[in-house]
């Protein structure tokens, strides 16, 4: 009797879960379809005339993060969005339109940024986006505008000074599902890794002395270090996470404008100034 009962419940559970999954699937498909068709339509019309369209509008539409410290963070008090990504966006607006304030920021997340771009809601995505082969099939990327890499956050004065000093006995903290967990296990076989639901929990555990170092993209780690003076990022990044600016596929003129801006910023020292302003130190050469 007991067994049958449990099977009954199990099947009820499965059916319920199936509905949920099916629902999600449908939503995703709908989103993708409309994104794809929207993208094509916009792509054909604009093609290499995308810059002309931006100029006609007189305003650059940029998708940025609103929740990422140092890169794109909405200040709850002032309502302003500020960060490295925003300063870069302003420089691009200045290059294309001659006015760094001719810009409209729109919030994107890792999930929404490509659909919004392909829908034509934004001209470009400047949102801590790593250039990957998979994403290159969906969008075009500019040159690397920020070189991130996986690194370690430790308490100041920790014996850990970089990946070299991580041994099997080191307790590493990380976030579930992040590629950084896989990376560290590959670099230091047998290392103990404690995984948490998100970076805030992992950081709280580090503060509570539950582990020796927290690992993920240094860009995120710098944000944490800026929250608490007692912690610092140590060692050289040991993976490559190049951030690029994404535009709709085929908008080569926009990519060129972005790359020209980046080259200009790097040549006149403006890039280093923005980098130092947010990250707290000059970029590694």
């Amino acid at each position, binding site marked *: 009797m*007991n067994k049958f009962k*449990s099977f009954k419940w199990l099947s009820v559970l499965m059916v319920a879960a199936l509905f949920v999954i099916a629902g999600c699937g449908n939503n995703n498909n709908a989103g993708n379809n409309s994104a794809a068709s929207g993208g094509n339509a916009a792509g054909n019309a604009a093609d290499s005339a995308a810059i002309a369209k931006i100029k006609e509008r007189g305003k650059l539409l940029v998708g940025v993060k609103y929740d990422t410290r140092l890169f794109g963070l909405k200040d709850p008090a002032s309502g302003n969005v500020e960060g490295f990504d925003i300063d870069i966006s302003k420089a691009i607006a200045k290059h294309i339109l001659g006015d760094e304030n001719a810009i409209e920021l729109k919030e994107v997340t890792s999930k929404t940024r490509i659909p919004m771009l392909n829908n034509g809601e934004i001209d470009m995505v400047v949102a801590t986006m790593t250039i990957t082969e998979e994403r290159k099939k969906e969008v075009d990327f500019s040159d690397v505008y920020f070189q991130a890499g996986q690194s370690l956050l430790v308490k100041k004065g920790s014996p850990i000074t970089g990946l070299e000093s991580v041994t099997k006995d080191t307790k590493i903290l990380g976030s*579930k*599902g992040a590629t950084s967990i896989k990376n560290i296990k590959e670099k230091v076989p047998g290392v103990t890794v404690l*995984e948490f639901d998100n970076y805030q929990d992992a950081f709280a555990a580090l503060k*509570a002395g*539950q582990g020796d170092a927290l690992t993920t993209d240094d860009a995120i780690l710098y944000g944490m270090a800026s929250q608490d003076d007692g912690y610092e990022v140590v060692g050289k990044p040991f993976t490559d996470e190049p951030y690029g600016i994404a535009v709709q596929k085929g908008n080569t003129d926009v990519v060129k404008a972005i790359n020209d801006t980046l080259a200009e910023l790097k040549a006149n020292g403006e890039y280093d100034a923005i980098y130092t302003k947010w990250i707290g130190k000059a970029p590694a050469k």
Partner: protein
Amino acid sequence: MDFSILTDYFGLYLEGFWGTILSSVLALIGSFLLGSVIAVFRITTVKGLRWFGTGYVEFVRNIPLLLVVYIFYYGPSALGFPLDGFKAGTIGLAVYTSAFIAEAIRAGIMAVPKGQMEAARSSGLSYIQTMMHVILPQAIKLVIPPLGNQFINLIKNSSVLTIVAGMDLMYFADSISTETYRTFDTYIFVAVFYLVLTLPLSYGVRVWERRLQRKY
């Protein structure tokens, strides 16, 4: 349903299953002992102990389990002796469950008619003897069903260990699902592992209950 997840990651499932069993057994013993002591505090005539017992039960059972576990995870480390996720989680689980067990035991003892105590005491038995030989044997019959419920809840609640990286079944399941992207399949197997623990317990409690009913 993709059974390759079960076979490919069987080692991880087992490691987590073992963690869940170990944590549950330790928390079960701990919560039973602690709960019994608190139950005695709750019914004793000594005022200080009674207040303590009442305060303990009302405090612990009226805050979320997650918070109890957080207290044992972050609290000791603030005082300089950090407990790892497994220990903090197991202690938190034991403390949380003990409040409910204390209430179940107290309710069982209170349900034994007052005349039993009076009769036993007037036949010359001491308070302790009365408890041991008259009240508790009758109370236990009434206590077993709610205790069984608490123990089943305890096993399921042990999944809270995953929040503090306590190496339990859910913790490893999270890792498996983020690696395979087969969330639904991964967790269905987790449900089966939990049922392997809880169904026999549920059945055992019922058998024990029936046997005790027969005795009197």
